[in-house]
C-alpha cells in the first residue's frame, strides 16, 4: 500500500515537472545565432518590419534568467495583440553575429533585458528596461511627425518642424525662413524640415506635447535641437537670421557668470 502511494506520488511529481518544462519552453527565447550557426536574422527582421511600415520591438538580452524570461513573456503576449502594427525581434547581445545591431543602437552596456521600440523610419520611440506592461508598449506608437522628428534628433540634427495648413511634397509649403535655413550650406546637412499639417488629428497630441500654440497663424516653425529641446517658435514672417540668433542664444552656457552658483540658482551657502 505504502509502495503504491509512493509510486503514485513519484509519477505525479515527474508528470508536473514535464508539464512545467513544456510551459517554460513556450516562453523560451529563440536560440541565438551562435547556437544554431545561422547568420543574424535580427537585422533582416528589422528591415522587413520597416518595409511593411510596422514598428519593431527589439528585445535585447544577455543571458537567460527569470528576469529575461518574464520580460520576454510579457512582450510576446502584448505583441501578439499588436501584430498588425509591430514585429518582435530578439537580439542576444553576447552573440558576435548580433554585433552590428548592438553597435547600431549602442546597447552593449545598457541594462538588460532592454526593449527598444523602433519606428519604420528607424527612430527609437521608446525604451523599456526589465519591467513593463502592454499599455507602456502601446505608448511607443507615435505619430509620423513625431517619428521623423525623433529620427532627426537622434541623428543629432536640428529639426525645423513646420506646422502648415496642408503639407506639400518635398518640404514645399514650409515657411521661407526654414527653407533658407535648410538651403544654407553651413546647416543644411545637419538639419531636417518636418512638415506637419495643423488639421491632422493624429499630430494634435504631438503638437500639444511641444506646447505649441496651434492657434498661431500658419505656417509657423518650431525649432528643435538634440536631444529634444524646443528652441523657439517662429511665425511665417520670421527670417533665417532670427532663427540663427535664437539658436546662438540657446547655445550659450546658461550657467555662465555664476548662474548656477551661490548668487544664481545653485545651492545657497
Amino acid at each position, binding site marked *: 500500500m505504502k509502495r503504491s502511494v509512493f509510486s503514485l506520488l513519484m509519477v505525479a511529481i515527474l508528470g508536473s515537472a514535464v508539464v512545467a518544462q513544456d510551459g517554460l519552453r513556450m516562453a523560451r527565447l529563440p536560440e541565438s545565432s551562435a547556437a544554431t550557426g545561422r547568420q543574424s536574422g535580427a537585422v533582416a527582421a528589422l528591415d522587413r518590419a520597416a518595409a511593411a511600415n510596422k514598428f519593431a520591438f527589439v528585445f535585447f538580452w544577455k543571458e537567460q534568467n527569470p528576469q529575461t524570461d518574464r520580460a520576454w513573456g510579457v512582450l510576446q503576449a502584448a505583441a501578439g495583440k499588436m501584430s498588425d502594427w509591430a514585429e518582435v525581434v530578439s537580439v542576444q547581445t553576447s552573440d558576435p553575429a548580433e554585433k552590428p545591431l548592438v553597435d547600431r543602437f549602442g546597447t552593449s552596456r545598457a541594462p538588460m533585458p532592454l526593449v527598444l521600440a523602433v519606428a519604420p523610419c528607424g527612430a527609437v520611440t521608446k525604451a523599456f528596461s526589465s519591467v513593463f506592461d502592454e499599455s507602456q508598449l502601446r505608448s511607443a506608437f507615435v505619430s509620423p511627425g513625431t517619428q521623423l522628428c525623433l529620427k532627426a534628433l537622434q541623428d543629432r540634427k536640428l529639426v525645423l518642424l513646420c506646422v502648415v495648413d496642408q503639407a506639400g511634397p518635398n518640404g514645399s509649403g514650409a515657411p521661407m525662413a526654414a527653407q533658407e535655413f535648410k538651403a544654407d550650406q553651413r546647416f543644411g546637412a*545637419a538639419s531636417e524640415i518636418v512638415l506637419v499639417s495643423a488639421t491632422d488629428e493624429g499630430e494634435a497630441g504631438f503638437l500639444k506635447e511641444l506646447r505649441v500654440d496651434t492657434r498661431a497663424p500658419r505656417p509657423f516653425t518650431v525649432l528643435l535641437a538634440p536631444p529634444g529641446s524646443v528652441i523657439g517658435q517662429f511665425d511665417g514672417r520670421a527670417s533665417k537670421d532670427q532663427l540663427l540668433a535664437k539658436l546662438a542664444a*540657446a547655445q550659450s552656457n546658461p550657467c555662465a557668470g555664476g548662474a548656477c*552658483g551661490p548668487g544664481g540658482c545653485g545651492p545657497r551657502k
Partner: protein
Amino acid sequence: MRMRTLVWREIFERKSQLVTSFLAILLGITVIVSIKNITFYSEKAVAREMDSLGANILIMPKSVTLQDYYAADMQGDTIPEEYVTQLAMSDLQGLDNLSPKLSMPVELQGRSFTLTGILPKSEFQAKAAWAGAGIFTRPAGCGAMPTMAFAGDDKKTLVRQRVIENLEQDESLVGADVATALALKEGDRLSLLGREFKVTALLPQTGTIDDSRVFAHLHTVQELADKGPVVSAIEVVGCCQEISKGLVGKINRLLPEAKVVTITQIADAQIKMNHMMSRLSAIFLVIIVVVGGAGIANYMFANVYERRREIGTLMSLGATSFLIQRIFLLKALLLGIAGGVGGYLLGTLLAVVLGPKLAGVPVLPMPVLALWALLISTGLTLAASFFPARRAARLDPCATFQEI
C-alpha cells in the same frame, strides 16, 4: 627739548612693560590678520567651485567618502556603466549632461600621472531621446546646451564644462602639468600601457588635480584597466532648479546601490571651517581689545604715576596740560603703529606659509588688512591711553613737588 625727543625718551622709560604691551598687540593683530587672510581665500575658492560646479551631482560607489570634488574618481571602487544608460533613459529632468569616468594610475617617463577614461556625450545622448516624445517636455537650459552635429567641438571646454561632446577611441586630452612635464604639443603621439594615442588637445591650467591627468575614451581605458564595463564615478552637470526639486533623492531611488552627493555636501566641511575661522577671528578681536587694552591702560597708568614728578617739573616750566596729554597719546600712537605694522607683516607671512597647508588653497597678501590692522591697533592703544593721559594732564605740579 622737542616733542619728538620727549616722546622717544618716554617710550623707552619702562622697557619691559613696553615690550609686554607691544607683544600683546603684535600677537593679537598677527592672529586676526592671518585668520582673515586664510578665510578670505578659502571662501573665494569655495565660491569659485560652487560657481562652476554648484549644480553638479556626483554618483559614486556607496563605500566612497569624498573630500575633494575633483578627485571623485580617484578611488578603487566602481559602479556598473549601465547606470549611465539608466540615467539617460529615465524620465528624470535635469540629467542632460552626464560625465562617467574611470581612472587608473600610469607611469610616464618616470613620473606618475592619472589616465582617466571619459564617455563623450555623443555616445549616450541618443539614449536620452529613447524617452520618446516625452523628451520634448523637459525644460531647456538647466546647464544643458543644445548640441548639433555641425557645432564645433572645442575639446578644451572639458575642464570648464566637465563634459565632452566627441572623443574617438584613440584620442587623448592632456592636462597642463602633464603636457609641460612631457613637452607635449597637439598632434603628438603618446604611448600609454602599450596603446598609442593621438594628443588631440592640451587642456588649460585649472589648479586642480585635472592638470595631472590624461583623458581618453572610457571604453579604451576599461580595456587597458581590464575592469570590464565599470566606472569610478558619474558626474552630472545638473540643473539648478531640478536639484532644488529633489533630484538627488530621485537619483537615489533610481540607483539605490550608489551614493549620490552634491557639491554643497562636499564643500560643506570647508564652508563650516571657514565659518569657524571667522568666528575665531571675532573672538580674538574681543580678546585683544579686552586683554590688550587693559594691559596698555595699566602700563600707561603706572607710567603716569611713576613719572608724576617729571610731569610736575615740565608743567612748572611752562608745559601745558595739552602738551602733557599729547606726549602720552603720541607714545600710545607710536606703539599702536608699530604693533599694527608688525602684526600685519607677521600675520601675512603666517597666512601665506600656512594657508595652503591648512585650507588647501593658495593665499596671497591682502593690503587692505594692513589698513584694518593699523586702525585696530592704534584705536586700541589710543583708547586705552586716553584716561591715563588725561590724568597726567590734570596733575597739580605743586602736589607733585610736595612729595619730594
